[in-house]
């Protein structure tokens, strides 16, 4: 049962990752809609759990194997670092929209690190700031929609 659960979560996360790539191939704006990044931050801030480490690891391995030209394990470690970082930030500071936006900014910076290291600042900076606004809005909306009203 536990194995099936882990496999299901891995498949779901990989599908989200695939969906994110499809979405960003379709839209030709200067910014990206990072559904998978948002889900990783959501895991880090709301659902942080040691049992989720294997699904995230497996998703990263699949992404590295199928869609990335970088070495196996690069995106896997990026995904894991994002979850740890987002959890660390919300655990250390109060849960406010400013903190969430800061978390998204930092996580996006790490998420896009291969592009940031390769290309000049003017290539990614505009898209980066626009993506922060767009993805923060999506994240806050998602959080409100999934909030449990007790």
């Amino acid at each position, binding site marked *: 049962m536990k194995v099936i659960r882990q496999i299901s979560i891995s498949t779901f996360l990989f599908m989200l990752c*695939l969906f994110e*790539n*499809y979405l*960003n*191939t*379709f839209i*030709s704006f200067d910014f990206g809609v990072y559904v998978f990044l948002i889900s990783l931050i959501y895991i880090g801030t709301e659902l*942080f759990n*040691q049992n989720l*480490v*294997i699904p*995230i*690891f497996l998703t*990263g*391995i*699949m992404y*590295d*194997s*199928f*869609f*990335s*030209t*970088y*070495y*196996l*394990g*690069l*995106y*896997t*470690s990026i995904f*894991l*670092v994002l*979850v*740890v970082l987002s*959890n*660390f930030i919300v*655990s250390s500071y109060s849960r406010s929209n400013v903190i969430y936006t800061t978390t998204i900014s930092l996580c996006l910076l790490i*998420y*896009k690190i*291969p*592009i940031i290291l*390769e*290309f*000049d600042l*003017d*290539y*990614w900076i505009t898209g980066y700031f626009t993506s922060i606004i767009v993805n923060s809005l999506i994240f806050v909306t998602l959080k409100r929609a999934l909030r449990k009203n007790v």
Partner: protein
Amino acid sequence: MRSTQVIGIRKYVVYFLFIFLSGLLSAVDYFSNKTLSNFIPEQVNLISNFQIPDRLLQNEFSSLSSSRADLVAENIRLKEELSNLRVLYVENQELQDNIESYDLLIKNISDFELTYYATSLILKNSTDEYLISGGRNYNFEPGDLVINETGYVVGYLGEVFNDYSILESFNSTNFNFRALDENNNIFEINSNGKELIFSSLESTLNSKVGMLYSDITFGHINKFPLFDLESYEQTKLNNKLIVTVPIDEMLTFQSKLFIPKNK
């Protein structure tokens, strides 16, 4: 206070272990020349498995109630026919598009000794590299040129898997290409994502540079046009000619791409 801090760090231990494991995998992959990262894609035909079955497109579910009254049956039959016609219409449009793109390609290329495999965009990954259909199943190899319907080079294959490949296009982080001009001067082309930077390797260029071509001296399959630099500003820096060209055109799902291969 101290104990809560320890608990706070402890919850990340498993994550840190897996980050370390990922780092270890990267190191092994680096030293094994990417054998590890190519292992899974070599076992799985990812793209073929994701294709939508024709049965779903034909919408056979609408014929479930065909045993009802004649009128309903007739209605369903007509609906089926209509959906079949729609499928045929889409197929016809696709074939017409293919014919048009092949017509355009035939007008623009000079070498008919090569086979031109049509390929299409599948998706763009996080580092702005394009996944395109066709891989080892068509004998594609890393470094194979990818041209558009006008016969111009749009990139080359970075990595090749069973049924898909990764295209290093002009706005890819790893794009690095060599080409010749009409006077056989060698140019190195790099990308900064928004612009292509053409730099000559020889220092004795006097005249203005025109069209650049791929060439067999760099392992390319044939001479294909890459870029006409004549209309762009050409500056000399340390006796080398530098031309910066903005990347205007992005690849889309409608882009018709071809990979020339020997017959």
